[in-house]
């Protein structure tokens, strides 16, 4: 059984395990693929499915998109509280070199680790720029995300 369809969500469920961030999910510590349609808003679908399969998320945010496996893949970072992890498989999030586009074309390939890397970087920017995100993530979260802030922003902070 494989998720099909022209548009899919790729969800990265992230939580803070004391002093580091971890990746988890009902399909293991891996990208979680969800089928999207043209009826429901993608964010509403992800929120609904996460609530049903894992529990109420703290944040649901789309961080990137790409074309892959014959479909448009919308990547989402979903932040959950530690209490929801339970017995779900979970691994610490490592670091990776980002997949870079050229000025006018997409990267030739994008690895899963590169998509994961982009998620916390995006959240690190949002936690500074978006009051909603800032309100949802406490100081411990901000401290963890600080490691994902690109140097120029870090210098300004």
């Amino acid at each position, binding site marked *: *059984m494989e998720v099909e369809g022209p548009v899919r969500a790729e969800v990265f469920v992230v939580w803070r395990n004391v002093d580091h961030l971890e990746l988890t999910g009902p*399909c293991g510590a891996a990208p979680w*693929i*969800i089928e999207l349609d043209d009826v429901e808003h993608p964010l509403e679908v992800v929120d609904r*499915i996460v609530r*049903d*399969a894992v529990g109420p998320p703290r944040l649901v945010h789309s961080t990137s998109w790409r074309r892959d496996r014959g479909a448009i893949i919308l990547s989402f970072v979903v932040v959950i509280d530690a209490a929801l992890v339970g017995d779900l498989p979970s691994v610490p999030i490592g670091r990776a070199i980002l997949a870079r586009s050229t000025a006018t074309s997409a990267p030739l390939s994008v690895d899963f680790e590169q998509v994961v890397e982009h998620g916390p970087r995006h959240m690190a920017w949002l936690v500074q720029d978006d009051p909603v995100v800032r309100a949802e993530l406490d100081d411990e979260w901000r401290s963890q995300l600080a490691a994902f802030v690109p140097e120029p922003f870090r210098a300004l902070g």
Partner: protein
Amino acid sequence: MGNDGVSLRTKCACGWEMTGGEDEVVAATIDHGRRVHNMTATREQVLETAEGLGPERPRPSTPVDRGGGRGGG
């Protein structure tokens, strides 16, 4: 909608898998697809991708067939 004494296995690309009697496997697979992947699958679609594992044998904890209901997986 019977099991015909055949045990089946379905596997999802995400790693989830289910083994058991036909009804049990079909129901669990449809539920997994809907609940976890927002997919709508029919019984026929599940059976098309299911792997047959040969004659179904009752599990030790499953009551022996008493002339009704579905067999053990």
